[in-house]
């Protein structure tokens, strides 16, 4: 029977295989960063939290259990680090409405790329950013990062049923925020034409 690739990577990582680390890093770094930057709404904080996440993986690699699912493990650590950070720093509530401003400067943003960051995406990002972190994280984990609800529930440290309810509430809230965002956008459009 073919072994789960994540489990195979965990075994190789335990043995100190650097190429295994590179595979894990290449696979999960972009996803973890996207998750953290949408949670923290600050690039520098997301970078620090993610660096800490990787350092922790490297520190405990020899003690990883054979059945460790690296993806869930990494998201759990990243999420817990964010929660700890918020508790210790009283995260500011202001949000960055324009997520494209969080793109790194050295990655060129062509006019084509910018135009494609269309109006609906912008409103969706804004609506996501407006949600309380407990609702934002469930939508990011399942909706954006594609974790299975059972895995995402473990990441959040809650039961599957509690997660299901939270996800349902989060979707309803996001929908509300999108609608009010659309109304604001239409009001601005009308006012600008007057």
């Amino acid at each position, binding site marked *: 029977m073919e072994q789960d690739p994540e489990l195979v990577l965990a075994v190789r990582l335990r043995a100190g295989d650097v190429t295994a*680390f590179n595979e894990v890093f290449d696979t999960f770094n*972009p996803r973890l960063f996207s998750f953290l930057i949408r949670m923290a709404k600050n690039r520098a*904080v997301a970078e620090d939290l993610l660096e800490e996440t990787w350092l922790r993986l490297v520190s405990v690699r020899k003690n990883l259990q054979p059945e460790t699912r690296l993806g869930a493990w990494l998201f759990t650590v990243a999420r817990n680090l964010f929660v*700890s*950070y918020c508790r210790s720093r009283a995260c500011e509530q202001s949000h960055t409405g324009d997520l494209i401003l969080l793109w790194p400067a*050295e990655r060129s943003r062509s006019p084509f790329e910018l135009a494609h960051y269309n109006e609906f995406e912008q409103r969706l990002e804004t609506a996501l950013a407006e949600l309380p972190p407990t609702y934002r994280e469930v939508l990011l984990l399942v909706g954006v990062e*594609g974790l299975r609800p059972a895995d995402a529930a473990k990441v959040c440290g809650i039961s599957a049923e509690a997660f299901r309810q939270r996800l349902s509430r989060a979707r309803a809230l996001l*929908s509300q925020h999108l609608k009010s965002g659309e109304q604001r956008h239409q009001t601005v459009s009308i006012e600008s034409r007057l």
Partner: protein
Amino acid sequence: MTKDHDELFEALARLRRIPPATQWESRVRARCHSLIDGTEPEPKYSSQLTCHHRLPYAMGFIDVAAAACLFGYLLAVGHEAARLGGLL
């Protein structure tokens, strides 16, 4: 699940990944390699976040500035009280 909610989830799945900075990525990867290779000693595991390094310096400066202002104010109040009390 309503049709609206399905579309919402599809829209979420299409949100683009925000990439980390190339330089940051290279630095963190290299640091992890050094730790795995043993060329860099493994950090003492701490629950403190590395990002604390960015903030406490600034917070310490603000604390000192606030303490200095308070001290100056108390000194001025004390001086004025002494003057009004005829001690000075």
